[in-house]
C-alpha cells in the first residue's frame, strides 16, 4: 500500500533532450512547441550578445538565443544536425539554438537530483536538476530562469 502511494506521488515528467558541447541537456516538454532545422537567422543590430537574431516562423518573428553563449560555452559553426528548439516562456515564444536534438525522455521525480550547489548563482539559477541515466548525466534546465525577468521583458520587445 505504502509502495503504491510512493509510486503515485512519484510523478513522471517528459523532457526534450538536446546536446551542447557534448553534454546532454533537457527542457520540459510542456514548454517546447516544436523543433526546427536552422534556416536563415537575421542578426538584430544592438541586441544582447546571447541573441543570435530573428527568424520568420510562419509569419511570426521569433528571437533565437545562442544557447552556447548563454551557457558560457565556446561558439561553434552550424552543422546539419543543429536545431532551433522553439519554446514558450512567460508568453514569449523564443528559439534556442542547440547542437542537436536527441529524444524525449520520461523521468520520475525521484530520478531527478535537485540543482547541484556549485556556489555560483548564475548557473544554479537555470539548472533545475540532474538525472543519472545509464551512467550518463542529463542536465535539466529551468527555461523560465534561462534569462532574468528583465531580459525576458527585453525579449518581448524585440
Amino acid at each position: 500500500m505504502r509502495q503504491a502511494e510512493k509510486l503515485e506521488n512519484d510523478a513522471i515528467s517528459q523532457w526534450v533532450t538536446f546536446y551542447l558541447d557534448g553534454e546532454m541537456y533537457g527542457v520540459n516538454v510542456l514548454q517546447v512547441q516544436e523543433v526546427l532545422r536552422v534556416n536563415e537567422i537575421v542578426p538584430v543590430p544592438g541586441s544582447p550578445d546571447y541573441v543570435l537574431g530573428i527568424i520568420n516562423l510562419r509569419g511570426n518573428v521569433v528571437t533565437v538565443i545562442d544557447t552556447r553563449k548563454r551557457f558560457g560555452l565556446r561558439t561553434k559553426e552550424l552543422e546539419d544536425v543543429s536545431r532551433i528548439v522553439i519554446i514558450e516562456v512567460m508568453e514569449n515564444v523564443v528559439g534556442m539554438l542547440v547542437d542537436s536534438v536527441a529524444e524525449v525522455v520520461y523521468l520520475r521525480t525521484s530520478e531527478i537530483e535537485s540543482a547541484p550547489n556549485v556556489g555560483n548563482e548564475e548557473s544554479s539559477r537555470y539548472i533545475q536538476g540532474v538525472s543519472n541515466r545509464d551512467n550518463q548525466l542529463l542536465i535539466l534546465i529551468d527555461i523560465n530562469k534561462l534569462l532574468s525577468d528583465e531580459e525576458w521583458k527585453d525579449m518581448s520587445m524585440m
Partner: protein
Amino acid sequence: MRLHEISKLSRPVLEQEAALTVYLDALLQCVPDYDVTDSLVVEERSASSSVDPVTRVADVLDHEMRASAAGENPAVQGERALPGWATTSFKILLFRVNELTLAVPLSELNGIVAAPETITGLPGGEKWLLGLMPYRGSSVKIIDIAYFMATESRHLPMNSFSAYAPKNIVLAGGASWGFPCHDVLRIITTEPHQVRWRSDRQRRPWLVGIMNDPVCALIDVQAFSLDSMA
C-alpha cells in the same frame, strides 16, 4: 664515486626540496610555533607490497568507514581546537596532484574510484568546479583541487578534467563531491604533534597544517564542502 659527483647528483633533490619548502611556506603564511616537534611517522604497510596501492587504500578505507560506523574511533575535541579527527593518532592518505604530494585524513574520505575518461561539465559553474561525475545512480561534483593549491609563484590549476587526465577520484563529503588525483601513494599513521597546525584558518581554510614527514600540506576536506564555498 667522488665527492663532487655526489654533490652534483644530490643538487636537483636539494633544489626540489628547497622549492617545496618555499611553496609550503607561501601556503602557510603564519604558522603557530607551539607544536613543531621531531616526527616519527609509522607507515601502514600491507603484507604484500605488490598489492596495488589503490586496492590497498580501498581496503583500509572500507575498514575505517566500518570502524567509524561502529563508534570505535570517536572524535574528541582537542585542547588546541584541532579537527576532531586529529585529537589522537590518525591515518592519512598521501596522494599526488601533478608533482605535488598532499595529505588528507582517511576518516574524512568516502572512497577512491578509477577516474572516468570524461565528466559532465556544468554551464556557468565556478572556476574550481570541473564538472559532475555519475556515481552509483547519482552525481558527484568534481573539484579542481589544484586551483586551490595555486600560489602566486606556483600555478597548478588544470582548468579542465581532460587536462588533468587523473588516475583516480578521491570521494569525500558523503561521496557528494570528489577531487582528481594522479597517484594514490600510501596510507600512514601519524600523531597530532607531528603536524604544524595552523591556528588561523580564515584564509585557505582547507589548509589545516603541514606534515613534518613527509613534508606536505595536510588538507581538511570538510573545508571544501560546497556549502562553505558558496
